[in-house]
């Protein structure tokens, strides 16, 4: 039983982590593509159109990867989490089915038209197809976040005698107080990833002295969007989410902030430290007193319950992983704001394109928002433990009763191998597209 749970969780974690490399780029990138296309419609300057089409190629590669790694996610609800599906399917099935019907069809239909139909449709319709791709990809994010929000903070349900969750109020799924902050935070984080990637490709072209005109456009657009998105991720959306966790999942809040003991006169904020689970304290701690109470409740001496206030069965089962994920996400987010602010400052002083160290930094920064996004999701998912549906259905109760650990280990290893190949091929494809540049001579 222990083994089964472990491998089911590991397989889901591995496949969703790999899957989420792709949508986090496409969601933000679709907005940037719409922006480039809109600039082109207004200015008729060809480089904006080149940019839109170039990034749609990158989008398409990511979309394909997202589709083929996304189908396993949907399947795994049934294959590995059968009991969970059986008990909650009539609720989360709603939002998942809506995602299929309302967003995938929209996204895939108009993506194809955007790529193949520019000459047939004319520029205005081409812009419209781009906009519909954006709409589809954000709708997809919205429905997934609605599903996750229900698991984090269940609403609008009724539990029958046989343990099944049934829907009592459909609209509650979408007015869930967890949903909007989580959705906006997630979308802004996705915009961080995509603007950093756009800026990184721009910096690469400038440093290589290739496609200079496009490179400058990419860099400029990337850092401006990057700065705005990095700020919005932290405030108000990140702040709003943290307050939700404090309110609805206080045990997770204590664990992610690393508060082992409740402080009577206001909680300190931990900047650095390593959780020591044996002695129940943080090693090498650097902390600032009372700040956490202020940030969370705007009261300096507000008491925040630490992990000592909760029973062991209510606390997340992996406190260090949750704590590190949270601190890595917040730390990276802070660094992002700093670097982007620097870059925008030098852009304003018209020096950016000459400062090589900064260009190098921006170029190699591209992988880090991926780490921040994924650790952010680890905070959400590890924080929800030990529950699948917070407070109501434990993770141990959700796994498939008939699938043995050996079978899951076999398929997990298969996924690891296959995704390794897939990842390599993905890099080759993106690398080739970047190498060809926004104005390839002939395909």
């Amino acid at each position, binding site marked *: 039983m222990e083994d089964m749970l472990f491998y089911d969780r590991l397989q889901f974690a591995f496949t969703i982590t790999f899957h989420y490399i792709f949508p986090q780029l496409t969601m933000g990138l679709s907005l940037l593509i719409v922006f480039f296309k809109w600039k082109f419609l207004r200015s008729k300057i060809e480089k904006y159109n080149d940019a839109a089409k170039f990034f749609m190629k990158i989008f398409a*590669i990511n*979309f*394909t990867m997202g*589709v*083929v790694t996304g*189908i*396993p996610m*949907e*399947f795994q*609800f*049934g*294959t*590995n989490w*059968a009991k*969970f*599906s*059986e*008990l*909650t*399917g*009539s*609720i989360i*099935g*709603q939002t998942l*089915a*809506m995602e*299929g*019907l*309302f967003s*995938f*069809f929209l996204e*895939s*239909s108009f993506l*194809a*038209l955007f*790529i*193949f139909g520019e000459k*047939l*449709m004319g520029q205005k319709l081409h812009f419209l197809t781009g906009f519909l791709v954006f709409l589809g990809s954000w709708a997809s994010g919205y429905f997934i976040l609605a599903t996750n929000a229900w698991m984090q903070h269940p609403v609008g349900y009724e539990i029958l005698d046989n343990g*099944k969750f*049934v*829907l*009592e109020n*459909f609209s509650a799924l979408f007015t869930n107080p967890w949903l909007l902050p989580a959705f906006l935070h997630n979308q802004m984080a996705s915009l961080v990833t995509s603007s950093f990637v756009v800026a990184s490709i721009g910096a690469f072209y400038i440093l290589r002295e290739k496609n200079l005109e496009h490179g400058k456009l990419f860099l400029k657009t990337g850092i401006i969007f990057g700065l705005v998105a990095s700020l919005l991720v932290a405030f108000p959306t990140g702040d709003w989410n943290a307050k939700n966790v404090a309110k609805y999942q206080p045990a997770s809040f204590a664990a992610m902030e690393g508060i082992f003991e409740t402080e009577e006169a206001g909680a300190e904020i931990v900047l650095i430290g390593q959780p020591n689970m044996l002695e129940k304290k943080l090693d090498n701690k650097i902390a600032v007193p009372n700040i956490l109470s202020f940030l969370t409740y705007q009261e300096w001496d507000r008491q925040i319950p630490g992990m000592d206030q909760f029973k062991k069965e209510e606390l997340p089962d992996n406190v260090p992983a949750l704590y590190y994920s949270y601190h890595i996400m917040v730390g990276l987010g802070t660094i992002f704001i700093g670097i982007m602010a620097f870059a925008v400052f030098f852009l304003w002083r018209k020096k950016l394109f000459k400062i090589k160290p900064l260009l190098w930094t921006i170029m190699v920064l591209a992988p880090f928002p991926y780490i921040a996004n994924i650790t952010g999701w680890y905070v959400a998912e590890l924080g929800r433990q030990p529950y699948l549906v917070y407070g109501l259905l434990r993770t141990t109760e959700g796994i*498939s*009763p*008939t*699938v*043995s650990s050996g*079978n899951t280990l076999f*398929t997990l290893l*298969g996924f690891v191998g*296959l995704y390794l*190949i*897939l990842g390599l*091929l993905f890099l*080759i*494809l993106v690398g*080739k597209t970047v190498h060809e540049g926004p104005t390839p001579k002939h*395909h």
Partner: protein
Amino acid sequence: MEIFWYIAIAVVLAMFFVLDGYDFGAGIIHLFCAKKEKDKEVITKSAGLFWDSNEVWLVAAGGMLFMAFPTFYASAFSGFYLPLIIVLWLIIFRAIGLELRGQFKYQMWKDIWDKSFGISSLLLALFFGIGLGNLVRGVNLGGVIDGTSTYEGHFFFLPLWDSSFSPLSDTPGVIDWFTIIIGLIAVVTLAIHGANWIILKTNTSINQKLKALVFRLNIALMALTILSLVVWQSINPNCFDNFGKNPILLFFPLLYIAALAGLFFTKKLKKEVYAFGLSTLLILGGITSTLASLFPVLLPSKNSINPDLTIYNMAADSYGLSVALSWGILGFILVVVYGIIQKRLRAGKIDDMEYGH
């Protein structure tokens, strides 16, 4: 309400087999018939331009099944764990094959991804058929050993095969000689459908040969269909009762027979689209006939202890199903609109259309 969702899901699933079916079929034809580089390229393109919008239907069918029949989703997906994961891997291999082939110009690169596309298309068609065969044959629900269930009555786990390899075994595996027959039917059907698609959408040098091939495949299909019916009758003597009770359901098998008969005249048809239409009807007829004979059962039980899984004991609550009806209708209308826009803008032969990201 259950019946409505059952039909809706059947429609979406049938759309998946019709649409993605032609690119699976194109893969099978590609594997066995395409010899010249130009043909290989065009056939890959005839699948590559469309596969991802077609596969969306699978995702939609999965989501709807999850919503409307969550218990069935849970028991079938965990019970068919191994074949489903294998299907996922094949879907990935197929997609990579299609997307990567054109990326580099040298021949070995193209060859390896051609095989990846062709072989995984073939195996996917086979596995989908085998899957359908399993739904028809039934499984050992509840994992009954010596008269007692190992799990709750609606759960089960199927090994890939059982040592007897027979559909008559009490504990059959995923693959046995009956499900293989259904698997072959799927392969042949999709090969016919794919050939018609290639004839419709391209001007390859093998188009004429493919018309002759459709004729021969059709003979094989007829033989396999008769064989499968005989075997099915022997596994489950009551399998045609629904048609006796409700003769109107006979429309579906008649559709299948008419399409099968019509396909013998592929060469004489005035328009290529008619042949494609016939193989579409063939797939629709095949799926609907199977579902009509099973209705309302979703998965038959192989033992007398645990009852069959039916749309009534597997469905979600009625409030959920009726709410979903309102957004479901809106969604369907939108999907149809997108489909029409797409078809209009991408009509005609695709030989010279630009392809590749």
